[in-house]
């Protein structure tokens, strides 16, 4: 009993100290990896709003389960595992509510695994697109891509604006985006 009374304050003190240290450790690990986790989620969750919701859940789960992390070096791998689980939960909820049409669980699991392996390369390519490749677009190509992110635009109207059929417009946009991807690979491989 005496030992217990002596130990208790000591235990409480060390717990409080480690909590504060833990907070700082979590913050630095999370902020260092947040951009990569978000990009990983965004590649699997095709609507930005959905990706934002999934990211919030991931942040909270990572914080709540932070004690389970064995080593700081494993944070990225661990957080990607949590992210993958949350993406699948998002997909399951969408399918249950029949709110939107999404790819199957099997396909998303397959892609999650491949994207996990290629995440760093894709991050490099994304930066290359922003830093180098977008500047090489023709004015109308850039304008069409930008218009697709205008909340008030719709594809039939854009197709008409650029003098194309809807199918032709999609094909044109796809090719522009594919050229950006090829440019990004060249830049990323050269660096």
């Amino acid at each position, binding site marked *: 009993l005496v030992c217990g009374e002596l130990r208790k304050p000591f235990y409480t003190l060390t717990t409080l100290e480690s*909590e504060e240290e833990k*907070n700082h450790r*979590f*913050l630095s690990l*999370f*902020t260092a990896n*947040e*951009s990569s986790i978000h*990009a990983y989620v*965004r*590649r699997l969750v*095709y*609507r*930005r709003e959905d990706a*934002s919701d999934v990211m*919030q859940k991931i*942040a*909270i789960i990572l*914080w*709540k389960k932070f004690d389970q992390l064995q080593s700081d070096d494993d944070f990225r791998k661990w957080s990607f595992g949590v992210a993958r689980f949350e993406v699948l939960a998002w997909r399951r909820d969408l399918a249950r509510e029949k709110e*939107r*049409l*999404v*790819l*199957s669980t*099997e*396909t998303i699991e*397959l*892609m999650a695994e*491949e*994207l996990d392996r*290629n995440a760093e390369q*894709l991050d490099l*390519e*994304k930066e290359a*697109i*922003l830093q180098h490749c*977008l500047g090489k677009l023709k004015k109308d190509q850039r304008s069409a*891509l*930008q218009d*697709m*992110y205008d*909340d008030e635009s719709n*594809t039939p109207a854009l197709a008409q604006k650029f003098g194309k059929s809807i*199918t032709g417009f*999609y*094909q044109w*946009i*796809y*090719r522009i*985006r*594919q050229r*950006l*991807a090829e440019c*990004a690979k060249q830049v990323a491989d050269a660096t």
Partner: protein
Amino acid sequence: MKKEDELIIRYLDQNLSEEEVQKLDQSLRENSVLRKKFYDQVNVGTALEEEFCSRLPEEKVISFKRKSSSVTLLAFAASFIIAVGIIGYSFSNTKESIATLASNENAAWESSLPTLEGSELRAGLMTLKSGVATIRFFIRC
């Protein structure tokens, strides 16, 4: 351009029928080359969002109760998430305002950032010690 390629771009534009989604799904599972094209298209899409999307407000209400000892951790977690959120947004731009403190209800803050209702917030740490606050983050589309 193959039909499957068109399905990818139309899927990302949320413009596929149920039958077409099933077709794309099957093709993606069976065809690794198509999956690579899909990843390229999605990756370009994330870059384009960063480049083009305008800033829109998003409301997040962060609150907690007092008294219960078990709630202390939750309270701390709540304030912690605020810090994470704000620091997270610092990746995009550290100098601009990233959020507005929309409302304070009996809120007691520990913060180097302004805590008056209506204040614009830059990246930084805020600890909500008690009460309820509404922070409206600026996010891109």
